[in-house]
Every structure is written in C-alpha cells, then in structure tokens.
C-alpha cells in the first residue's frame, strides 16, 4: 500500500469557517457535537421535511466557527431523506444548508471497516478532512489495535483518536485541528477496477457534465450511484433528457456485466476490498474466544422470553420514575403560575387587560411550561438508553409484536410514553426511521390514556359508577377505570391496522438494524440533548399554545356580561359567592356559552347538554379543564349549600322529564368521548412541529372527533338500552 503525502492545511481555521460532522449513526457524532457546542446550538426542521438540522458554534483559537451535525448516514447513496441531506450538503447542492469548509469525519474504531466505507465515499468529494476515531475503549475490549499514523498515511488525511465519553473530548478535537490541521484527500484512493472507472468516466462525460448542475467533484459519486441503482426517482434533481441517460446507464451496466462486474455491487465490493487490504498495516486484531460484554448482555436482553420481560420492567421503572420525579416539579410550576397570576391580578386594576394577562397569557404560558418536567425526564431516559445501545435491542425484541399490529419495533417506547403525556411521546417518535411507521405512531399516540384524562375519568366514575366489589379487592369503579385504559390501547391498535392499509407507501419495512455495542453514555451529552428537547417544545409548540389560549380567553370573555339589578341584589346577599357567580354568568353568555348552546342539538344524542358543550370547547386548552369548567358553571346555582361537583352532577334534574339529567349512560358516553377525541391543543401543536405541516394535526383532529362522536353515541344508546333499560 503506497503512503500518500499529506497536504496539511492549517490556515482554514484562522478565519470563521463552517465545520460539518459526518459519520455513521451510533459513532458518538452527536456527543462530539454537544461537547463542541454545549448549549450554543439551534435545532430546527429543514424546510418541507421532518429531518432536524442541528447547528451550533464553537471557538477554536479565538475564532468562532459554525458546527453542523449532519444526519448519520451509512453511505452517500441517499436512499433516505436524512442521508440525502448529508449527501446534498457535502456536494454543496442543498439550498437550505451551508457548504462545509472542512469536515470532521467521525469513525468508530471498534467497527473500522464499516465506518471507512462511508469515509471513503466522503473522501472522494475532496473536502478538507480531519478523521476522528471514537470508541477506542470498545475496540480495546475486542482486541482491536489501530495505528493512527498508518491509517493517516493510507488515506492521506490527519487522524486523531479521542474518547467521546471524556469531558475533554472537545479540547482533544480542537487541539488536533490546531496542531494537525486538515487535509484534502485525493479521490478514488480505493482503486476502482478499470471497467468501473471507465463506466464512471463515460457517464460523467456523456451525460452528467452536460445535463446536470452537479459540481465536478460530485459527479463520480453520482455516476456510481446511478450505475448501481439506475434510480432516477429522486425528486431533488431535475434531470433533463432522462430517457437518454437511462439508455446510456443500461448500456454501461451491460458492458460491466460482460466484463465480469456486478453493476449493483461493484462499488461496494471494491471499496470494502480496498478497506480490508489497506487495514492490514494499520489494524491488528487479537483472536479472542471469550465473549465480549455485548455478547453477554445480548444473551439476556434479546432472549425470547427474558427480553420482553426486561423491556416491560425497564418501561415500568421509567414511567414510574417520570411520574414521581416530574410531579413535584409540575406542582411547583403550577403553583408558581397561580401565584404569579394572583400577583398580577392584584397589582393591576380589574378589567380586560388584567383578565387578558391573567386568564389568557399567564394561564396559557403555565399550560405550556407544566409539560416541561415530563418532557425532560422522558428524554433523559430515552437518550440515556439510546446511548447505552439498549434501545436498538428493545426495538428488536418488540418488533414481532408491533409488526403484527402494523407498527414498528421502535414505536413501542413513544406509545408507552403516551400514558404519561402524548407530547413527549410524539417528540420521541423521531427514533423511528421510516416515515410511514413514524406517522402512524404519531396519529394513534393520543389514544393512549394520558394523565390529563384522569380528572375527567375520576369525576365521572365517582359520580355514576357504583362502588361495588367484584372479586377480592377489585371494584366496579376500578374495572371501569382499567377498561378505559384498555379501550385506548384497543383503539390505537385498531386504528394502526386501518392506517396501515390507507397510507400509500404501505410496503412493509423490513427490520434491518445495526445493534451497536453496549457502552456507558456521555452523561453531559444526554443532559444537553434532553434540555434541547425542552427548549424546542417551549419555543415552537409554546407559540401556538399561547395563541390558542388567547383565542379561548376571548371566546370565554366576550361579550362582557353586565350584572342586572337582581344579580347585584343576590350578590349582596351572598358576598362569598359573588365573584364566582359573576364569572359563571359571564361564561354562560359568552361566545363559549353560546357555542355550548348552539351545539346542544348536535351533542344531545350523546347525552350531553349545553353545559358539557361549553366544557368541550374550553377543555381544548387541556382535557382536565373540563372539570374546572363544570365547577364554574355549577357554582352559580349553589346559593344555599355548597355541594361538590360529583354530588351536583348526580342531583341535576332535567326540567322537562323530572328525571336525573346525568346518569351512568351520560358518564360512559362522556368518558368514551374523552378517551378518543383530540381534546388537546398542545398535542396538535407538537404534531404540527413534528410533521412540519398543518395537514396531519387537522387530519388527526378530524378523524378523532368523528370517531369520538360516533363511539360516544353508540355507548350512550347501548348503556340506555342494556344497562338502564
């Protein structure tokens, strides 16, 4: 193997430059990005798609540089949206990303050959590179020794070996950039065979150079891809004279075959052959017969029986911890916003501005911030488990079951998170690679009974379901409660099965996944990533939620109510109730109140009256608001003795029939409605963010509302006929 002279460039870093991180998934790329940028990062979606763009800044030798964390890729043959972005950015043809001045090529030392495959493709693009070797400790454990200097000589670029788990990994990289610099690699170091090289040159000369806008250095890579796949379906290129190109490619493929080359595999096989041969001088591997840590752990974690059991235990610990750790923070946030609202309310003169600030903006903001602890705790767990390598195993052991219901193994964690709250669950669907699987998971996730449904279920069950013991400690109330959770799961599974047939790209996604070696993750990277998720929620979904809160405030506050002489007299007689009575009267005749009365004919078949109708509108802010709204509405009629809401619901009499207005049928109907309906603006806001379009939140709202309406109707009729009839 001939050694190359390395043309080191150090001057690039003397001026502000754009540095891109490139590498396979699970190589420690994000850890390096987090170490280099800390919290100086900005995460947003690339326009029109749901792939995230991660950008940050870092200072090297007093100069501020931009850092881009390009999506992890196994190759530049861009089959998936994220790999395509990496490819297009590297060739400088992606409008929404800057062309990088230099690259940090992140290479997993414990899996060198596989990682060098992508590196060899990237090096063909002739961008200045520093190769960063990570996971050396795992390589050591496997008996793999890499001579960095030898590797550097083979590929003609500087190589630095770092420990990505060390707190100083950013310093190691900065030092290497300053001392070793970067170098522009030479293309085609992997020595393609003569027939393959000739085919690439002819495709470049006769078609790519004339009919495409690709830069010269990118054309050989594109030619290799076209020869292997012949795929013209990529929408991002406007190929002219496609027919001519197809003919030429067919001819070149036939020529390759006649010369004994397999056109679909020639590039891959030849690159791997070169990597294997060139590794002889730079990589040594001791033959070890004993099992590695990964072998031993996989024997347990992927075991047919133990695997799923361990996974369920991990989830149990995870959700119990989220529940118990997040609750005090949520209570604290709730209290802070109530106190702050009370302070603002008492500091400003009563009136519209006061009400807008307190009931609209502060209440809206509080409604956003309260989700933060759950989101951060869930992501701490997810990033930690992802960093250990366990998540890939969890997806693997659950894949069989999830495939049966039309989903993917990776859907299981987001779906289970939905029991706490749909929002972090929807954000967690980013771990699902396939867009169809991810979309279906998002669309069914709100069926999982989140904690905000609890207050509605609790009030309705306590009021209308008899507290009858069934077997042992099981009561009818407990069973109904359990049944509602089960109902959510059944709805989710059923909807997934239907959607699997509806969505056009419905071909099954085979489960082919790399299982990375187990390792202890970099904790500061886990924390930074979790905080970033929290920031994304507050800044992006928060804007929409506050806007909707203000709209709901307007609906509940206008037109303003002027108390009559009778009201004033009543209030004088019962001063304690006066403020509550006023707010109730205000709500009843507001736009929200009118809305309740307006939709009464439509919701009557479900057993609901206009009071519940108001609740349906106001609970769009958050499901638990339903209980608060009913409390407000019923407070007006309580002049002599104050009954609890549960008692009040039980004793409500229909003036026309003289019978109780609400009964078990109404309660079941309302609970079924709440189990299905998309009564949560925060969820819709996060679905908009995660799907990068208003289309899917609107579809979600539409299908869930229709489904909820008919299910509640059937429940009401069934309960009236069979339970009460």
């Amino acid at each position, binding site marked *: 193997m001939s050694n190359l002279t390395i043309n080191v460039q150090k001057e690039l870093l003397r001026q502000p430059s754009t540095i891109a991180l490139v590498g396979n998934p699970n190589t420690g790329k994000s850890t390096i990005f987090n170490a280099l940028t800390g919290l100086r990062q900005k995460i947003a979606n690339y326009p029109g798609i749901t792939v995230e763009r991660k950008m940050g800044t870092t200072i090297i030798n007093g100069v501020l540089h931009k850092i881009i964390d390009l999506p992890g890729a196994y190759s530049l043959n861009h089959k998936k949206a994220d790999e395509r972005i990496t490819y297009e950015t590297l060739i400088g043809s992606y409008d929404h990303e800057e062309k990088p001045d230099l690259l940090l090529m992140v290479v997993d030392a414990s899996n060198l050959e596989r990682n060098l495959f992508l590196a060899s493709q990237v090096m063909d693009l002739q961008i200045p590179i520093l190769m960063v070797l990570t996971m050396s400790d795992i390589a050591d454990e496997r008996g793999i020794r890499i001579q960095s200097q030898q590797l550097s000589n083979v590929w003609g670029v500087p190589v630095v070996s770092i420990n990505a788990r060390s707190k100083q990994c950013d310093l190691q990289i900065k030092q290497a950039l300053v001392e070793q610099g970067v170098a522009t690699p030479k293309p085609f170091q992997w020595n393609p065979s003569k027939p393959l090289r000739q085919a690439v040159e002819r495709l470049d000369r006769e078609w790519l150079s004339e009919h495409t806008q690709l830069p010269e250095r990118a054309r050989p890579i594109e030619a290799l891809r076209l020869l292997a796949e012949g795929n013209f379906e990529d929408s991002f290129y406007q190929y002219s004279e496609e027919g001519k190109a197809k003919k030429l490619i067919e001819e070149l493929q036939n020529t390759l075959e006649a010369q004994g080359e397999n056109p679909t595999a020639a590039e*891959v096989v030849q690159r791997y052959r070169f990597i294997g041969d060139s590794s002889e001088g730079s990589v040594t591997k001791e033959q070890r017969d004993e099992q590695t840590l990964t072998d031993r752990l*996989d024997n347990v974690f992927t075991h047919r029986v133990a695997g799923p059991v361990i996974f369920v235990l991990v989830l149990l610990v995870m959700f119990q911890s989220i529940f118990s750790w997040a609750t005090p923070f949520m209570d604290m946030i709730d209290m802070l916003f109530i106190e702050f609202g009370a302070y603002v309310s008492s500091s400003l003169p009563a009136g519209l501005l006061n009400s807008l600030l307190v009931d609209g903006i502060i209440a809206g903001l509080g409604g956003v911030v309260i989700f933060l602890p759950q989101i951060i705790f869930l992501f701490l767990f997810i990033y930690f488990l992802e960093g250990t390598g366990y998540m890939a195993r969890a997806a693997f052991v659950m894949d069989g079951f999830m495939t049966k219901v039309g989903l993917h193994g990776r859907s299981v964690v987001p779906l289970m998170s939905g029991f706490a709250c749909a929002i972090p669950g929807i954000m967690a669907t980013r771990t699902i690679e396939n867009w169809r699987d991810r979309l279906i998971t998002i669309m069914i996730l709100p069926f999982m009974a989140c904690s905000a449904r609890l207050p509605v279920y609790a009030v309705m069950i306590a009021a209308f379901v008899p507290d009858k013991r069934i077997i042992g400690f099981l009561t009818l109330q407990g069973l109904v409660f359990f049944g509602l959770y089960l109902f959510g799961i059944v709805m989710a599974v059923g909807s997934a099965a239907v959607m699997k047939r509806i969505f056009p790209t419905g071909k*099954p996604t085979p489960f*082919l996944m790399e*299982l990375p070696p187990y390792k202890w993750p970099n904790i500061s990277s886990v924390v930074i990533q979790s905080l970033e998720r929290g920031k994304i929620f507050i800044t992006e979904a928060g804007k929409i939620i506050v806007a909707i809160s203000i709209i709901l405030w307007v609906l509940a506050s206008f037109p303003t109510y002027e108390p009559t002489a009778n009201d004033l007299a009543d209030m004088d007689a019962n001063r304690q109730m006066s403020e509550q009575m006023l707010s109730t009267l205000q709500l009843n005749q507001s736009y929200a109140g009118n809305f309740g009365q307006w939709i009464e004919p439509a919701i009557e078949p479900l057993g609901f009256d206009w009071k519940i109708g108001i609740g349906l509108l106001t609970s769009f802010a958050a499901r638990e608001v339903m209980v608060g709204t009913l409390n407000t509405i019923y407070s007006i009629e309580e002049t002599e003795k104050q009954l609890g809401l549960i008692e009040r619901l039980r004793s409500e009499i229909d003036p026309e029939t003289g019978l109780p207005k609400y009964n078990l049928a109404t309660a079941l109907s309302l609970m079924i409605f709440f189990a299905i309906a998309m009564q949560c603006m925060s969820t819709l806001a996060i679905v908009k963010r995660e799907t990068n379009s208003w289309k899917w939140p609107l579809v979600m709202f539409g299908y869930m509302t229709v489904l909820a309406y008919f299910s509640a109707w059937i429940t009401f009729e069934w309960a009236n006929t069979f339970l009460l009839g």
Partner: protein
Amino acid sequence: MIVPLNTTKIGEQVRVSCLNCTSEDTCRLQELGCVEGATGTVVYNQKNIILQVGECRLAITHPLAMNILVEPVSKKKSSNL
C-alpha cells in the same frame, strides 16, 4: 450447500452467497458490510436473526433473512471480510 439465513443455527459461521431481496434492502445490507462473499456468525436465531459480520452486529427480520442465501463454513475460518 446454500441455504436461507433463517435456517441456520446459533453459533454457525456462514458465508453470504446471494442477496435475493429488493434492491433497497440489498444496498443497505451491502453498505453495512453484508456483501456477497463476506463471512459472519449467527448470534441469535429465534425467527428473527442477529448476524455478526466483521465487527457489525445486524438485526434482521425473518422475511428478510429468508432472502439472504448463505453457505455454512467451518468454524475455524476467519470472520474477516
């Protein structure tokens, strides 16, 4: 003797003979190092398969494993590409 990957046993060493799947799956397998001629070890086979190829551990579902044709090789041979 060439057999589908799903018929192999845990611990068995195999050489990949033919990737008989869709072009997309074939490309992905190849990029991950599972090229024709590569040898690997079957780490797990309970319907779904885990195949260790070089240093890369691949989880492969049953339907995909049925379309990967392999040739069992003796245990002594190197597992390098």
